[in-house]
């Protein structure tokens, strides 16, 4: 009773999310997720948090406010530090360093360590007060010491620690509790030393790193979730296209009910969205010059004025690119006082933009073709293309890859499934963060230490040598039970509604090993008949080019076994439908292949006392 009324302490927690996060730490943008459909927004309301750190006077800015500082305070603004983590100063080449950022120098105290030098204002320590104080000459208070400009040296790992610390702060603000663990994605081009350095930087920021996750693995987790794959087969071959600002990584992954195996992968830092940015900035700069008769030379800019204008344009086109990805119409780009006091407003439509970005698009699709060729995988064997990274939101890229690599028309992409727009589940910008959040939650709840240890070692599993398919005698097409390269042991269950005849009630299955190939057919394109006869003579001279048409084919290779049984629970369909009078029974077919390669196939009629049929192959 005597207790005071009310309390500021929250008495109950509002949700049951584990206090762990997944962090996608890119070179230009980072995102954090906690396992829900969307990623967490920071206090500025951004889900894509710019990897930038800026010092101005006594202030430190992180994220997009720091990016704004690039215009006037670029020498104290640090961007593009992710790629430098764990690299020795002597290893850093000029290509690694993002232009227009704070200078990267050799750390004055530590040998061969890269560091950024920024100028900050620091307040000198107050003068020590003596014990016997002489009375002040005037009544006015002693003025506080003036902050003086000093150089601050920040090693790359310190910068990373500060940045990850701010990400964690945003996450714990969102979750309302302290973050205990995190899973961080690492790009494929990271060396083990870099991974270690990243892990250390994150640990210094006050979070336990459960795992540093390959980007392909994070993508695998997200794309295997029930939400994503609702309409897709659980066993499929995927192509991951991860186009970041400074790198392109591609992987072909065999996804077998969530178990992934990378068939082939490639990664290059020579293709990236920065090139698209350059093109777009040049385009708008030319537009500005044309409109205002003010010369503006960008990419690279030499004069200070031009440099500032370029920085302004670069900030502005972020918005333009996002608009282009989201809507089919024209997107504007407006900058106030771009140069010499002239404002600039320009617009670019999607077609013009795609033309500008065409070289990058073609480079990406060439890389995809190369990868497929080197892996010996035909484009028709890819069931799904997954786009990762902000730049791959561009629809033009999807069209270009689809056309020039020659994927089948029914290949699933986030665009064809319509999940890419508006933060849908296919949103390429959040895939990695979400995947690592799932992984973090998984590792957080995992109790068995031996399993936890397996996450950091490489696990090899035996895999099926050939695809196993089920055939119902009398039917042409088979049903794939277990795809080639499925890690063993494996089990697949399929429910059949089997039709039987009134007289025999027998049903049967054949088990075949099959081979799925792609048949290439050369087809002559249909002749275009012009209504006028003018070009009639020329047409005959022209060599008709043949077009390759590809078809998926399956070929039965070996019969593994066959069996029949008599149904006991068949029911005759009643009513007037097309099935009236026919007899059906429902059976559940289970195929299990053990680690040693022994196959057992069991068919059970669903219900009590149902018929059983089985095939065993050791």
């Amino acid at each position: 009773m005597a207790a005071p009324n009310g309390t500021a302490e929250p008495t109950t927690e509002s949700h049951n999310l584990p206090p762990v996060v997944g962090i996608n730490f890119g070179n230009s943008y980072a995102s954090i997720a906690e396992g829900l459909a969307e990623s967490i927004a920071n206090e500025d309301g951004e889900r894509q948090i710019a990897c930038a750190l800026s010092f101005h006077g006594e202030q430190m800015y992180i994220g997009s406010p720091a990016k704004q500082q690039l215009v006037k305070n670029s020498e104290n603004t640090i961007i593009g530090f992710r790629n430098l983590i764990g690299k020795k100063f002597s290893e850093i080449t000029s290509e690694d360093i993002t232009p227009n950022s704070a200078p990267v120098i050799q750390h004055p105290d530590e040998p061969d360590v890269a560091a950024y030098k920024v100028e900050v204002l620091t307040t000198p320590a107050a003068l020590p007060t003596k014990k016997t104080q002489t009375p002040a000459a005037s009544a006015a208070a002693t003025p506080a010491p003036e902050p003086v400009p000093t150089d601050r040296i920040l090693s790359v790992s310190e910068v990373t620690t500060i940045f990850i610390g701010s990400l964690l702060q945003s996450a714990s603000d969102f979750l309302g509790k302290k973050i205990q663990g995190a899973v961080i994605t690492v790009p494929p081009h990271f060396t083990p030393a870099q991974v270690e350095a990243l892990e250390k930087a994150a640990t210094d920021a006050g979070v336990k790193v459960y795992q540093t996750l390959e980007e392909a693995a994070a993508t695998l987790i997200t794309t295997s979730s029930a939400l994503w794959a609702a309409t897709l087969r659980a066993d499929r071959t995927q192509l991951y296209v991860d186009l970041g600002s400074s790198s392109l990584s591609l992987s072909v992954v065999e996804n077998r009910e969530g178990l992934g195996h990378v068939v082939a992968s490639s990664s290059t830092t020579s293709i990236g969205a920065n090139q698209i940015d350059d093109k777009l900035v040049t385009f708008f700069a030319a537009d500005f010059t044309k409109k205002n008769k003010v010369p503006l030379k960008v990419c690279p800019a030499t004069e200070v004025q031009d440099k500032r204008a370029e920085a302004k344009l670069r900030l502005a086109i972020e918005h333009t690119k996002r608009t282009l990805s989201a809507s089919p119409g024209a997107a504007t780009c407006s900058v106030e006082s771009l140069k010499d006091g002239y404002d600039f407003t320009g617009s670019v439509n999607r077609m013009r933009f795609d033309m500008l970005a065409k070289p990058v698009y073609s480079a990406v699709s060439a890389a995809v073709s190369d990868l497929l060729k080197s892996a010996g995988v035909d484009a028709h064997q890819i069931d799904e293309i997954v786009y990762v990274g902000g730049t791959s939101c561009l629809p033009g890229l999807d069209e270009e890859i689809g056309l020039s690599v020659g994927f089948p028309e029914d290949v699933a992409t986030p665009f064809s499934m319509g999940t890419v727009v508006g933060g849908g589940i296919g949103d390429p910008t959040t895939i990695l963060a979400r995947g690592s959040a799932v992984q973090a939650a998984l590792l957080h709840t995992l109790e068995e230490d031996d399993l936890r240890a397996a996450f950091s070692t490489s696990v090899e599993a035996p895999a099926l040598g050939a695809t196993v398919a089920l055939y119902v005698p009398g039917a042409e097409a088979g049903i794939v039970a277990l795809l080639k390269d499925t890690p063993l042991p494996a089990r697949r269950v399929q429910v059949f509604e089997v039709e039987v005849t009134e007289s025999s009630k027998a049903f049967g299955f054949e088990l075949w090993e099959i081979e799925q190939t792609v048949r290439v057919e050369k087809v002559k394109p249909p002749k275009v008949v012009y209504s006028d006869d003018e070009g009639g003579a020329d047409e005959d001279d022209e060599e008709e080019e043949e077009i390759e048409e590809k078809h998926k084919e399956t070929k039965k290779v070996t019969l593994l076994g066959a069996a029949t049984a008599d149904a006991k629970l068949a029911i005759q369909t009643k009513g007037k439908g097309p099935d009236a009078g026919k007899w059906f029974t429902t059976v559940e077919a289970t195929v299990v292949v053990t680690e040693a390669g022994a196959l057992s196939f069991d068919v059970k009629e669903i219900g009590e006392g149902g018929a059983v049929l089985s095939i065993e192959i050791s």
Partner: protein
Amino acid sequence: MSTIRTTPLPAGYTAPDASGSKLSPISKRKLLPAGPAFVNHLRLTLHNGGSFSKHDEHAAKEQERLDLLNASSSNIEDDLGVGDEPESSELLALDPKEWKKQDHYAVLGLSHLRYKATPAQIKVAQRKKVLKHHPDKKVKATEPDTSLLTGLNLNTNDDSFFKCIQKAHETLNNFERRRQFDSADPELLEELEEETPTSLKAAVAAKGFIETFGPVFEREARFSKKEPVPQLGGLDASKEHVEGFYDFWYNFDSWRSFEWYDKEVNEGSDNRDDKRYTEKKNKSERARRKKEDNTRLRSLVDLTLGLDPRIKRIKQEEKAAREAKKAARAGAGSGASTPAAAPVKSKAEEEAEKKAKEEAEKAQREDSKKAKAAAANAAKKARRAERAAAEAAGTA
């Protein structure tokens, strides 16, 4: 997983012989260490030896564990023991206009806690009730089913209970108002009504002294301004406890007040005299009730003291001690004649003896106190002298 429909077996089909056929040779694949599927694979191969039936059992157990983990972390909100009380139809039919008469604790579902409810519990209880009875929810829940009735609002009196909840929360959330309500708690009043000296005496005869008066004083303790409040204790409580108990309850300082019964000043009238008159009336009424309450408590303590078997016991114990002492003294002085004579003593004699003994004890106590003080003085003097001596020695 969709169901696949098949055609019937062709007539005359016999299963072809495939004995001796083998699966293609197995290859090796490096797995990406990611996702729930990977964990399942590890469990299957490392823990269950590749057996799916064993794995299924394990998976079910694991799922149970995870569910439990989620539930215990905060899936089910900690309601601080507020719980869910059944809502009777009378309770739901309460009229918010008659809020002065309603039992606010029952409205918030706290009648099992009443005055013991903490502010945090009240908050939780209010939130629970609001979630359940908010008018917005009600309209949805009882939306007319038939198209004929759509558009008609069938829930005209819908938010009356919600208003009651708000009133209850308003009252209980305010420290002052909650004390006023607690002073006039309907449950308490009911108990007081039933509690008469005769009923208490009967209860003592039926249940025993402690069982009757223990809860009574526990109930009264809530009004104490001082904490902690000494409770009745057991039958074998020490003399100090019993004395302390009665000492406390005879000097009980209660915060119980009676503003709750105040007559409302007539809102419509601006007449100052009217207001003053009502206020004066209220004040005197409050004072009267307060006095009444104090008298009630005092008579209750009187009654308790009168019925307390422990007083008798303590007296007897004292007597026994005294007698033992006396016997010891007499035994040492003149032999063993006195103990034999003791049982025949009359009551008057006993009383007198007791008084004498008490006085003697008192005298003894005083003596000992004096002696102690003298000893302390002496010690002090000695110390002073010592110090003086030491100083003298030092100067010398």
